[in-house]
Structure formats: C-alpha cells, structure tokens
C-alpha cells in the first residue's frame, strides 16, 4: 500500500488512527504492529512470512550476540556474521537472483535455474535496519531489545516500512517503550504528511508526466534542449517523489509519537557532489558510511585503498537502488565524481557557491539519466540527445515544452530550496486562518488529483 492512495487515506489511515488512540496505552504497540503487518501484506500477502521470519531471526541473533559480546567476542562475531549473512542471503535471493541468473544464463551457464521471484516491497529498507541493529549490538552501542513485540515494531513500523528513512535503532529505542503524542505534535506530523503528499501528488506526478511525454517523443521531434527539459523534469520528479515519501513517513511517525531522522536536506542546493550526498537520502548514505566504508578503512588508508573503498561503496549504493547494470553505472559515476572532487578539484573551485551549485546540479541531472534508463541503447540515445548527438539544438517542440512545462519546473526549482520553507513558517504563525485554509485547499487538490487518476475512460494501457 502506498500513502498516496485512496485505500490508505480513506480506509487504512482513519482506522489505524481510531484504533490507536482508542486503545489503552499498553496496547498501542500491539495496534501499530497489527496494522503494520496488514499494511505490508496488502497486495503481496505471501511475503508476510518472510517478514515474520526476518523478525524472529534477527530478534534471536540480537540476543545471542548481546549475551556473548562480553566474554566470547569471537563467538559473538561468528553469530553476527551468520546473522548478517542470513539477511544478505534473503536480500540477495529476492532482489538480485533474477538479475544475476539472467546474466549468467546469458553467458551460457544454462544449468542455473531461472526462478520467478517478485521483489518483496521494502526488503532493502528493513534488511538494512536489521543489519544496523545487529552490528550496533555487537559494537556495544545499543542495548538488545528483549521485547519481541517492540523489536517486531521496530522492523515493520508502517510509516517507514516501504520507502524509508532507514531508522537506526538508537533513534527510536526509547520511543518504543514510552512515547507521548500531544495535539501539537500530531498537528506537526500532519504538516509533514501534507507536505509530503503535495510533493508526491501535485509536483512529482505532474513532472513525471512531463518527463514521460518527452521521453517517448518520436525521433523527428527530439532536440537537445527538449532532452534537458525532460531531464530536469525527471530530476525534480524523483526528488519530490522520494523526499515527499520520506516527509509523509516522518509526519506519520510524529502522529504516533516517533521521531524519525531527517532524510533529505535540500540536496539540489548542494555546492559539491560530496555535499549532495550528505543531503540526499541521508539515512542511506550514512548507513553505507557506518557499516561499509568505515569498516573497510575509510580514508585512513593509502590512496590506492581509498579509491578501492570509494568504488566499492558506490557500486553497492548503485546496486541497492535496483538490480541492473544501469544502477551500477550510476553508482560508479558518483564514485568517480567524488574521487575527482577529492583528488583533482578539491580546493581549486572558486569560493563562491554558485558555480559549484550549478555544476553539481547539472552533474546530478545527468546522473539521473543513467539511473532511469534500464536499457542501455535508450540511455545512449537520450544522453546523446542532451549533447546534441543525432538531433538539433532546439525546435518548435522545445517551445511547446517550455510553454507547457515551465511553470511546474519553476515550482519544482523553488520548492527544492529552503526559501519556501522559511517563508512558510513565518507566514503560518502570523496568519492562522489563511494558512489553514491553504492547507485544506492543497489537500483537496491532492484528493482531486488522486480521483482524477481513476478518471480513465479508455483504460486499456492498464493490461
């Protein structure tokens, strides 16, 4: 189930709110857990067993590691290894096996069976949460969770279950036992949720439509500038889509008394690639830093090894986003950019932020075009168009897309900066009524857009 759906907004959400706040405090974890499992099972019920298995395995291993870390650290390490291996095995089979087996069969290893496996939603997120939990116990950074219910809730909590943020155990440890929701905190959660919904439904979806229209243009209409307009549209789309989802998760967390970490910090205002990745999907990049990069030695090693570490981390980051060569390419692209930034450019760029900001934004935009095209020849064609290969610089169609897409692109650019956020806060406190009315209006527009999605008199593309 996704948050931006009728089922969620008008059936699931009212039910969980009602059940949660009617239930006595002691039963609230149980209520959340039950609804989280329903949320997860909706649409792919069979994977609920995988989820329950994962919870049990990680719960037990957590306790084994915790019991042995003081006196039998080697034994604890062995168990950590097995537990992490188990998680990676599950992730590997369900997420990467179809890709890997296709590749291997493609080079002649026909004996490898091709299994049809659907990707369990959210598996990349909750697996990473579980691994961070186990490692943190081993490192003695957290206390083991003895309550099975609470641990299960940590893994499956529906707000962040399917699209993050990847919540570290220490961030929610106390709240799992005791948390308070005030009306103001609930309202603050509502503010985040609405912001996320607006980003997703009103911005991301329209930008996505613009990108799809440009992406599917016949050869005769393509031009370099049109291709860039499309690339910008996608760049903003993925940001609003993803950060919108994180905002909704954070907002829902607040409504139930949880404080999740920030996942995005205006990444498109970054002045360098390094800073971009400190602002984009923060919970993922810090996970990789904490559990892969630093254990590999980080940068406190010889330059040769450092290069190796960076490339490993970024290849894995790419792979995490999906099983495909394009994701590996996209990850390595960032690895190389970061190395260039560190070893070649570092302080040579001017101290003024704008050149760096613009260059970073353009590089990120280009990167998304590697990310979005799973088919390499399509990728080459599209990226080629961006550099004027096989098409003109601009044509009449470019004008059309400027006229019809400019407004939504400008809105996208504007909402990618902190300017709006600051204004909004000041305005909201000053003018209650207008602010609330605006939020109601925006919510209605979101609902309208969701209803309109079902407005489909000629539905056959659905088959």
């Amino acid at each position, binding site marked *: 189930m996704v948050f931006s759906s009728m089922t969620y907004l008008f059936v699931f959400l009212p039910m969980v709110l009602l059940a949660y706040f009617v239930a006595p405090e002691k039963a609230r974890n149980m209520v959340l857990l039950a609804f989280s499992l329903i949320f997860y099972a909706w649409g792919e019920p069979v994977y609920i067993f995988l989820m329950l*298995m994962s919870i049990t395995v990680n719960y037990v291993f957590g306790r084994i590691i915790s019991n042995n870390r003081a006196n039998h650290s080697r034994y604890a390490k062995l168990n950590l290894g097995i537990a992490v291996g188990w998680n990676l095995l599950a992730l590997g089979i369900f997420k990467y096996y179809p890709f890997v087996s296709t590749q291997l069969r493609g080079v002649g290893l026909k004996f490898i069976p091709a*299994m049809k496996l659907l990707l369990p939603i959210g598996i990349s997120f909750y697996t990473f949460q579980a691994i961070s939990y186990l490692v943190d116990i081993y490192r003695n950074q957290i206390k083991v969770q003895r309550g099975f219910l609470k641990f299960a809730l940590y893994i499956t909590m529906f707000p962040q279950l399917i699209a993050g943020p990847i919540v570290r155990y220490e961030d929610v440890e106390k709240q799992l036992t005791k948390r308070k929701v005030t009306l103001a905190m609930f309202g603050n959660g509502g503010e985040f949720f609405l912001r996320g919904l607006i980003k997703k439904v009103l911005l991301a979806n329209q930008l996505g439509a613009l990108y799809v229209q440009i992406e599917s243009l016949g050869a005769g209409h393509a031009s370099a500038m049109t291709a860039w307009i499309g690339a910008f549209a996608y760049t903003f789309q993925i940001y609003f889509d993803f950060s919108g989802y994180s905002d909704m998760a954070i907002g829902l967390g607040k409504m139930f008394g949880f404080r999740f970490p920030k996942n995005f910090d205006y990444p498109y205002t970054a002045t360098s690639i390094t800073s971009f990745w400190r602002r984009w999907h923060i919970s993922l990049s810090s996970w990789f830093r904490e559990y892969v990069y630093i254990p590999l030695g980080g940068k406190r090693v010889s330059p040769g090894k450092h290069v190796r570490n960076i490339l490993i981390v970024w290849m894995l980051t790419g792979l995490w986003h999906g099983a495909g060569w394009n994701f590996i390419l996209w990850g390595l692209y960032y690895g190389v950019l970061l190395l260039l930034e560190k070893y070649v450019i570092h302080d040579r760029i001017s101290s003024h932020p704008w050149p760096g900001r613009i260059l970073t934004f353009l590089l990120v935009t280009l990167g998304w075009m590697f990310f979005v095209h799973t088919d390499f020849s399509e990728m080459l064609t599209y990226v080629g168009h961006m550099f004027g290969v096989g098409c003109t610089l601009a044509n009449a169609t470019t004008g059309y897309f400027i006229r019809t897409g400019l407004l939504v692109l400008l809105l996208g650019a504007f909402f990618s900066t902190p300017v709006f956020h600051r204004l909004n806060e000041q305005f909201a406190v000053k003018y209650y009524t207008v602010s609330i009315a605006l939020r109601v209006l925006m919510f209605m527009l979101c609902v309208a857009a969701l209803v309109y999605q079902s407005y489909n008199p*000629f539905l*056959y593309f*659905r088959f």
Partner: protein
Amino acid sequence: MSGQWDIEKRRQLYIVAFQVVAVTALLVFVWFIAHEKKYKEVDVPALVTELSAITQDEWHEEDALSLKRRFGLAANDFAAVGYFGPNSNMDAAELLLVRVNDKSQVDAVVEAMKNRVAYQCTCFNGYGEDQMTLLKDVRYVTRGYYVFMIISSDASAVEREFLKQIEP
C-alpha cells in the same frame, strides 16, 4: 562445575540448531515461492466446454483458424488448446485455454492474449460500454503448463472452477 559446563554446551547446541533452522527456513520459503506445483493433466477442450457453461455469455467453440486469425497462435505448437469465441463481433466474452509444450512458450501466449484484448478494446472503446467492462475484468491465469484467458461476465467463477479442476 561440570553441570554448568553442560548447560553452556547445551546452549551452544541450541544456538547451532537455531542457526540451521533459520537458514533452512529461508531456503524452504524460497522454494515454496519459486517452485511450480504439478497440475493435473486434463482434457483441455472438454474442460473449456464445461467452463463455458458456467455463465450465460454469448460464445461458442471456435476452430484453429480463428485462433490463428485473432491471436496469431498456431494450435499445433501447443499440447492442447480450447477456445470459445464471441458469438458475434459485437460480443466480447472469450475463453482461451492453452496447455503449452514448454514453459518458454508461456510468455508468448500471454503476450498474444494481451494483444488480442488490446485490439478488442480499440474496437469497443467509446462504443461498447458493456464489452469494455468485460474486457477490463480480463484474467490471465498461468498455472504450470496452463495459460488461461478469461473474458466473461463472471470471470471469478470461471477462474475458481478452473483452478479447482486442475488442482492435483
């Protein structure tokens, strides 16, 4: 002293047992998800005839030529085919059950079915509201060697009965 050692030993044994169970459970689950059940081999045309009687849809049994024309599929390529087509081109109800020789054929058959449905939709869209309703409720059921397309006023009932019949 030895009692404590025993307890420790037993605990370690439990842990080893748990490790084994954890990994086995995962592999069993994967097998459960990925394995294909063996379905019963049935008389395909007879089954389709039987299924066609469940609803009052306007359809009749078609020959291999219609299959070729409408789906681009040659009946000889498959182990068995049962096809009920619409009584007139103003009807939309159809049943096509194919038992493939080789699982690699499944995708192509489903593809052909989808093309057929997409084509039917272009014929009826904007004109035939009832037909569009049936077409939108199309089911593609693939089980083992069976590929089954159901366009019917009660697709669920047909699907249920079909699954019951091939259940081993």
